[in-house]
């Protein structure tokens, strides 16, 4: 029989008409609704540090500034950064203290295990692949890296991580505060980060200097109710937070320095009240001699005073009246240097403090008296 005469079957004979319908829901009713979303299940995984990346804009900065650029640009990996950090610790006491704390944490993983997971989310990394960006737990990350480098281990450690859908600055700041008390600079950055987050101003990766991002808060007008949102997280009053934000006036290298040596807000406030050209010198002096804010005030009054070898500057004669008038003059000079927005903020802050301290009536009386005396002199002249 020739090929043309052979019986041919239709390929569609077996295909029923019902099967032709592409519309869902025809025929039997569905037994189950569409898949419900996953309930909140903890997503815990184990990752090596090389699969993770700290948040550049974490208010609490751990990695020294000289290593940050190379690390976050991908020039060096986390273990190379840790090795360089260990080298730096040999010659810098502040870095050494921090590194020792982290190394001790890393050693404790062997004994006690990793108590809390690192939290974060998967983000597109610098090379296009996905990397786990850390929200909280950067200290555990560096502790593991430093431990591996110090012990020359071949295998990478595996850290417990929890994947969160929406990392937040609030959670980051809360974790920081639970971990250890922050420095004044860290607190300033935390407040700034919270404010910028509330105002919908996320950090951009193109920003070269992370402090520039935090400084943006100083030029923002605070919407109503914003301070009330931040207060429960920071556990600070509004005036206190404003005081801390003032620290961000310092240039970035000085911010790094003051952060590293954990200078207090009171000392920095005193330093900032001095002329800008004196800031670096005063910070150096303060670090070297561990000066209090009162001592800074004295040192700033004598600009070229060398640092005494005993560590304390010579005391000026104590005349309370002169001290009071010098302080008021300093206040007037400082406030006149500010721009109008900062001036009104500073006066707002002062009014809050005076009332808070229960000295409102007294202060008004003194200021009225001073005002009368000044007006009399102007009239005379």
């Amino acid at each position, binding site marked *: 029989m020739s090929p043309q005469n052979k019986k041919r079957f239709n390929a569609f004979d077996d295909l029923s008409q019902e099967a032709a319908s592409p519309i869902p829901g025809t025929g039997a009713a569905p037994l189950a609704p*569409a898949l419900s979303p*996953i309930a909140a299940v903890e997503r815990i995984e184990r990752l090596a540090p090389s*699969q993770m990346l700290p948040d550049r804009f974490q208010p609490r900065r751990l990695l020294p500034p000289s290593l940050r650029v190379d690390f976050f640009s991908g020039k060096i990996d986390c273990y190379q950064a840790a090795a360089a950090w260990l080298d730096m610790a040999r010659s810098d006491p502040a870095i050494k203290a921090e590194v020792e704390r982290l190394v001790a944490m890393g050693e404790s993983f062997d004994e006690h295990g990793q108590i809390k997971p690192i939290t974060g989310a998967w983000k597109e990394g610098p090379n296009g692949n996905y990397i786990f960006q850390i929200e909280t737990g950067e200290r555990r990350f560096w502790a593991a890296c430093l431990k591996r480098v110090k012990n020359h281990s071949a295998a990478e450690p595996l850290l417990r991580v929890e994947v969160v859908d929406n990392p937040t600055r609030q959670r980051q700041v809360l974790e920081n505060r639970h971990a250890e008390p922050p420095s004044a600079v860290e607190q300033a950055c935390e407040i700034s980060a919270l404010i910028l987050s509330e105002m919908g101003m996320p950090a951009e990766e193109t920003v070269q200097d992370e402090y520039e991002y935090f400084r943006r808060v100083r030029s923002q007008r605070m919407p109503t109710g914003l301070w009330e949102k931040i207060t429960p997280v920071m556990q600070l009053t509004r005036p206190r937070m404003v005081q801390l934000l003032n620290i961000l006036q310092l240039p970035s290298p000085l911010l790094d320095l003051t952060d590293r040596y954990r200078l207090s807000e009171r000392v920095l406030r005193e330093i900032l009240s001095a002329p800008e050209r004196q800031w670096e010198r005063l910070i150096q002096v303060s670090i070297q001699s561990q000066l209090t804010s009162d001592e800074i005030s004295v040192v700033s009054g004598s600009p070229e005073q060398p640092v005494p070898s005993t560590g304390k500057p010579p005391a000026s004669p104590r005349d309370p009246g002169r001290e009071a008038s010098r302080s008021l003059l300093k206040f007037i000079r400082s406030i006149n240097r500010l721009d109008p927005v900062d001036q009104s903020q500073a006066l707002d802050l002062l009014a809050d403090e005076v009332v808070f301290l229960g000295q409102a009536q007294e202060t008004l009386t003194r200021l009225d008296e001073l005002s009368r005396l000044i007006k009399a002199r102007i009239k005379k002249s």
Partner: protein
Amino acid sequence: MAVTITIANEKGGVGKTTTAVNLAAGLSLKLSGRSGAAGKVLLVDMDPQGHALLATAFGLKPTPGGGNLSSLLLESPPPSALRMTQRSQYHPNLYVIPSSHPAMVEAAHLLPTLMANETRLSRALAPAAKEFAYIIIDTPPTTGHLLVNALVAADLVLIPVETSYLGVSGLMELQRTIDQVRVHFRPDLKTFGYLPTLCEEQRSEAQEILAELRTRFPGQVLAPIHKASDLAYAHSSHMDVFSFRPPRHKSPEQIWSSSRGTQEYAVLVDTVLERTGSGV
């Protein structure tokens, strides 16, 4: 949120992997001008047999044993799907979750013993869905838990159909599987269309089958993909056809060249974009 398209047919050799590879590559080229999730495409390889073709088409080495996609299916809770992704060498906005043959064979054996074994891929991909505009899933040519997982994870099913007697004869079984998935898991699962592949119109059988498909599935039959040497050569060169035969001036507006394979898959890409509301 990503539109998930599963490429399925229970018959082997009909062009599922070729379609998955070229559709994903074409979509990534078309969306290359968009930023963020709107410009990214994810390709998931659920076929234990096709792993070499799929992954290597994008400059990726096949993953070693104990691979990654299988852990999405077997572990509870599953690891992050984004962790498994690898970026394509040829298309910076195209990501692949490759698989390995031994790991996926093991996954196919173990899946029936696990709880919620039909929904594992869907649940594993859900957190990653917001990172991509499209997720394309290639499937094995067998009825089984891997195929069911891919269908449950899908919004749309694209069915390549070889224009031959054997090519059509597998459709009934696939349709039953799709209907069962609709009844039990995804009432919203839609058939995107039937894609005639390996088409040789000079053969009368092919013409008859095309006509019959259009009669039985009106409005559902997509523009055919003809048998073309470029498609085969692209595979052997470890490339998608758009990278194998690029146009002189590549742009999101024109991704096809003089090669028929590129032209026909470009039409499919445009159809997908248009019907899913992402038309450029």
